[in-house]
């Protein structure tokens, strides 16, 4: 039945034959039903994944990066001669570097030194400069170092400031939320997304609730301050992003790193979906919700694909867990 719905709803998502530049391909990502990994749910419950890895920069972060940069160009905060700078552990950096290259603005990124090699390389290949911050200080250390660099030459930079720029969540309000509503023909009942800056869950969640106040908005969060869910933040122990308003959430579900990694491994072998750890976390939370339902359509945001984590602990340590779920890792 949903296949038919998707065909009806497909036209707004069809890719244009030709575009004038890569940034026109941001958004309009597909929604895919997760079937095997979700077995055991009530017959009336479906779990759908929004595959943000289909964005041209490879992640959900293309949306807020483009929203913030377009807004800055429109209001004059970004003009020729200025460099785009921000602190980012990866996906936002890649998105900013890609958009900077496409629009002709130099980009400088402050990243913790332990960010994955492939991320560093992708950022460099877009021509952006990387400044490293102390890995022991995490993303908060990168935020502080970036603020210091900007303070030394405030006129030289435009800082999108994804943690505090309302255009971050606005981008999701204007694109991610409407796409999900349209792709499910308004049948979405639960929306699940991880919290990094909070932009996705806040912006898309706000749109969906305005459309239908019965839609529940749920955030997946690392269960501990010491975790391995790259991209997600444990709010109680972090600098809380200015765009994050916890009171707008219906529920926050803590997810352990081990459970999220296991879900990533299962998705790759049971669904042919090779995704990153934040997608695993989103599905763990989505399943937690879905198991309690008799009817419903649960949409989870999968922020990126797994290939860009090949040198990270997600994959380099997977052999340590041969006994993960019912998946055979004897390859």
């Amino acid at each position, binding site marked *: 039945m949903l296949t038919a719905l998707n065909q009806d709803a497909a036209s707004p998502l069809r890719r244009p034959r030709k575009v004038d530049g890569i940034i026109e391909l941001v958004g309009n990502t597909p929604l895919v039903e997760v079937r095997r990994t979700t077995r055991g749910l009530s017959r009336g419950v479906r779990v759908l994944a929004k595959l943000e890895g289909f964005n041209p920069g490879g*992640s*959900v*972060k293309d949306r807020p990066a483009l929203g913030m940069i377009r807004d800055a160009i429109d209001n004059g905060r970004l003009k020729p001669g200025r460099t785009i700078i921000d602190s*980012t*552990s*990866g*996906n*936002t950096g890649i998105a900013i570097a890609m958009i900077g290259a496409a629009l002709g603005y130099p980009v400088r990124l402050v*990243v*913790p030194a*332990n*960010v*994955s090699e492939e991320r560093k390389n992708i950022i460099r290949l877009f021509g952006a400069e990387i400044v490293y911050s102390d*890995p*022991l*200080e*995490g*993303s*908060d*250390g*990168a935020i502080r170092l970036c603020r210091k660099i900007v303070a030394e030459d405030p006129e030289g930079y435009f800082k999108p400031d994804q*943690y505090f720029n309302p255009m971050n969540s606005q981008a999701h309000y204007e694109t991610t939320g409407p796409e999900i509503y349209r792709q499910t023909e308004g049948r979405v009942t639960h929306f699940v997304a991880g919290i*990094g*800056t909070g932009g996705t869950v806040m912006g898309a969640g706000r749109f969906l609730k305005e459309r239908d106040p019965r839609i529940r908005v749920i955030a997946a969060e690392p269960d*501990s*301050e*010491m*975790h*391995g*869910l*790259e*991209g*997600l*933040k*444990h709010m109680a*122990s*972090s600098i809380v*992003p200015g765009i994050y308003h916890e009171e707008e959430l219906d529920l926050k579900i803590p997810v352990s*790193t*081990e459970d999220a*990694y296991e879900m990533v491994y299962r998705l790759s072998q049971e669904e042919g979906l090779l995704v990153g750890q*934040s997608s695993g976390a989103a599905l763990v939370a989505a399943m937690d919700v879905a198991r309690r339902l008799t009817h419903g359509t649960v949409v989870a945001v999968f*922020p990126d694909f797994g290939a860009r984590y090949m040198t*990270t*602990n997600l994959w380099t*340590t997977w052999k*340590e*867990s041969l006994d993960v779920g019912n998946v055979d890792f004897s390859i």
Partner: protein
Amino acid sequence: MSVRVRVPTPLRKFTQGSDEVDVNGDTVLAMLEDLEQKHPGIKERIMDESGKVRRFVNVYVNGDDIRFLQNVDTALKDGDSISIVPAIAGGL
């Protein structure tokens, strides 16, 4: 053996905010046990119930990842510098 341990931000609540602490141990495991003795609660954030370093935590001895040495059996000597680093770089 007295060694110095660099503590990442998420674990500093166990070390009263200190980013470096001095502990004793002739192996990484012994060092972690002494760290737990002095800062209760910290070890379970680093190791799982089976005694293995959690998959998302990297422990370095003088800059070398113990996964490429002898893991928690890696020998330590006086003055070694240990870093406990989350395997991730934080928010998106």
